[in-house]
């Protein structure tokens, strides 16, 4: 088979799996698990084959036009360069791990068939985005991902949190998608084609008329999808979905789609230095803000969600300094270790029966209950904190190195101010990242107090997957020497200055947090806290849903617990209150958008009820009145009717006579 055929099969197989899963889910429950896992496995193997054949060489391009559409043609096109090949392998790997993990995690869930089919559909859409060479086809995958995310976040739709979160995720990403669509049209009109290769050719020839406008419009969609400031607010709430969904969609793949999109079309953004500076500022605000917020969260998954936002900020920062190799390098390593973090968090939530770090910090020996999750999560947290030699170190240093490269004025392709912004905030965020990673680890695994509940061993599939993902988290960074061939980019080797600075700051952050924890841990015993799920023997998905639903009644807030023993509270001081609620951005949006829309809705309702309906009722009243008058003629007496008939006939006859005689 040619590489093109293989590449077409990669998104097609999970799609067929999803269709079959949705059709057969009820009638043949035995097929659901194979239908979920096998197409994803096949897609992963094929993606690896495609990557091996492409090998970082010339991009594989193939296109076919089904039907002429009038203006700018829309083609079913593939454009597989090194980026696409490697990102597809990551997507396939994480999707496979998540599907396997879900068979254990949701083993008793009655809605597992539709869940697995939606995950397959999502995988197919993401692979379509990755391989597509035509922006409209890419948009199709982009939107299918959005709707899958909506359904999967709302998997536990019995809980109000999940319902609200799914609607919020959908609306906020759509808020970005509308400008994104307009931007795509503007780009297609300017370039005369939606093909990525032709657009890049047009940009190289200077044929783009409105680069800043187009770049900013596209940026809105990317900010929505990749959860960048100011459209990031949906991601922490999306943690109400099941953990495997968070791992696949809201950590490793979908949120990376925006980064990947910019990486593909980077020359378009580079054509406007204003867009690059906006990108840098967006990245900086996102990185620093999410770091603070992560340090204040109580829900373990929300810590990871803010951490995802921050790491995506690093990738955006790398793109802002025009280094897409570093961005995609960080995307790949982050995809692996963040998926691992989420899946391990799912195991921990199941074992502890709670998603609250405050409650976990009051459990002794939780790590002994979940040894696999303990060790793999330690690896992933070290990778997240960018401690050498874990994967995150190399990818993050490549981002910082690229920023330093631009800041010191070695290159022409990105404004120096963007370099400085990304470099300084990136180094500061390294400190914050290490700090919240340490806090998470200490609170989850070094608790004091009552013995952690023992619910028996975790399902084997869940633990096995953790070790599979631990391998790239540990060793993928060493690929920094090979990757430039794939990405035709600059050397990705960490530079000495940024490495020393970054690692030093990470160590400082970790040590400061450790010190704060030693200081506050004595308080933990004095303030009892904790609520544990009602059905600890149930499957992991149910335990998690109950944990999320019970967090607000137990602690007063979804994201926040009044725990004086939290080292984050000591470190952040007065900032803690604001960081815990995401710096009140939700309240701002509530005042700016939600309340005006509600007021407008009640105005419209008033107009409809009181004004429009009055006219409608008035229009009905007159015929009703006439009808009442006419009804009086219905006496029921046949002879009256015949009399009326006779009178009418006589009148007609007289009239006819008068007309006939011409009188």
């Amino acid at each position, binding site marked *: 088979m040619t590489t093109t055929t293989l590449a077409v099969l990669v998104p097609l197989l999970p799609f067929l799996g999803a269709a079959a899963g949705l059709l057969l889910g009820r009638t043949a429950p035995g097929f659901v698990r194979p239908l979920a896992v096998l197409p994803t496995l096949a897609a992963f193997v094929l993606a690896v084959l495609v990557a091996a054949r492409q090998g970082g060489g010339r991009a594989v391009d193939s296109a076919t036009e089904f039907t002429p559409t009038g203006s700018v043609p829309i083609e079913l096109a593939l454009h597989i360069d090194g980026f696409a090949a490697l990102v597809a392998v990551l997507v396939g790997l994480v999707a496979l791990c998540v599907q396997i993990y879900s068979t254990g995690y949701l083993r008793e869930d009655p809605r597992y068939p539709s869940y697995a089919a939606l995950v397959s559909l999502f995988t197919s859409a993401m692979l379509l985005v990755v391989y597509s060479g035509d922006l409209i086809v890419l948009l199709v995958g982009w939107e299918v991902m959005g709707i899958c995310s909506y359904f999967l976040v709302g998997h536990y739709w019995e809980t109000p949190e999940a319902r609200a979160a799914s609607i919020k995720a959908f609306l906020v990403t759509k808020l970005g998608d509308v400008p994104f669509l307009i931007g795509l049209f503007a780009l297609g009109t300017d370039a005369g084609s939606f093909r990525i290769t032709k657009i890049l050719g047009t940009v190289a020839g200077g044929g783009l008329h409105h680069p800043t406008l187009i770049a900013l419009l596209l940026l809105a969609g990317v900010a929505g999808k990749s959860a960048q400031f100011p459209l990031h607010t949906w991601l922490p709430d999306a943690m109400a979905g099941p953990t495997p969904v968070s791992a696949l969609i809201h950590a490793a793949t979908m949120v990376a789609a925006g980064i990947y999109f910019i990486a593909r079309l980077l020359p378009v953004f580079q054509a406007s230095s204003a867009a690059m500076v906006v990108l840098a500022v967006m990245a900086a605000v996102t990185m620093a803000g999410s770091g603070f917020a992560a340090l204040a969260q109580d829900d373990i998954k929300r810590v990871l969600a803010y951490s995802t936002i921050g790491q995506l900020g690093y990738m955006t920062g790398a793109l802002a300094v025009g280094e897409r190799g570093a961005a995609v390098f960080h995307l790949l390593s982050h995809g692996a270790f963040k998926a691992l973090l989420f899946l391990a968090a799912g195991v921990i939530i199941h074992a502890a029966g709670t998603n609250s770090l405050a409650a976990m910090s009051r459990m002794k020996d939780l790590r002994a209950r979940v040894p696999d999750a303990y060790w793999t999560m330690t690896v992933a947290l070290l990778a997240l904190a960018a401690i050498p030699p874990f994967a995150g170190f190399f990818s993050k240093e490549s981002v910082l190195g690229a920023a330093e490269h631009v800041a010191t004025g070695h290159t022409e392709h990105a404004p120096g101010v963007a370099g400085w912004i990304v470099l300084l905030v990136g180094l500061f965020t390294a400190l914050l990242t290490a700090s919240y990673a340490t806090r998470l680890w200490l609170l989850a695994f070094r608790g004091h107090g009552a013995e952690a509940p023992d619910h028996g061993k975790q399902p084997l599939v869940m633990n096995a997957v953790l070790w599979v993902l631990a391998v790239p988290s540990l060793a993928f960074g060493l690929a920094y020497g090979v990757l430039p061939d794939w990405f035709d980019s600059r050397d990705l080797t960490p530079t000495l200055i940024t490495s020393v600075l970054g690692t030093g700051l990470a160590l400082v952050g970790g040590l400061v947090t450790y010190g704060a924890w030693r200081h506050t841990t004595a308080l933990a015993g004095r303030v009892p806290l904790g609520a544990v799920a009602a059905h600890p023997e149930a499957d992991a998905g149910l335990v998690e849903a109950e944990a999320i639903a019970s967090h607000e009644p137990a602690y007063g807030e979804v994201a926040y617990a009044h725990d004086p023993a939290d080292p984050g509270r000591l470190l952040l001081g007065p900032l803690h209150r604001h960081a815990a609620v995401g710096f009140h951005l939700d309240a701002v949006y509530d005042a700016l958008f939600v309340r005006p829309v509600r007021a407008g809705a009640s105005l419209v309702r008033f107009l409809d009820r009181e004004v429009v309906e009055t006219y409608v009722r008035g229009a009905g009243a007159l015929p009703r009145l006439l009808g009442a008058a006419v009804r009086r003629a*219905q*006496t*029921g*007496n046949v*002879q009256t009717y015949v*009399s009326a008939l*006779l009178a009418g006939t006589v009148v007609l006859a007289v009239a006819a006579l008068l007309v006939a005689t011409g009188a």
Partner: protein
Amino acid sequence: MHLVYPAVLAVLLFSTGLYGVLARRNAILVLMSVELMLNAVNLNLVAFDVWLNRTARETLHSGQALTLFTIAIAAAEIGIGLAIVLAVHRNRGTSDIDRLRDTAEGHESDAPEAEKAEATA
């Protein structure tokens, strides 16, 4: 015979019938009046048929043929009409048209009860 005699007779018959239909209260007499009106029409048909044949404008005797039709249909009609009147009289004890006002606006329908009564009778 001049055409005017049967025509005048037909007018008289029709007016008598019309008066009966409008003024009588007994349903049987109303039916009889309807018969009178029908026969007035029959008389007209026959008279004009003859008159048209005499002037040789029409030779098919379609007027007389139509009269035969009318007589046959009138026989059927009066049969059904009398049967209905009989049934109504059995059910309600009266065949007074003034009191059969079930189709009047605002009249409470008692059709199911009437059917029940008919079934028991």
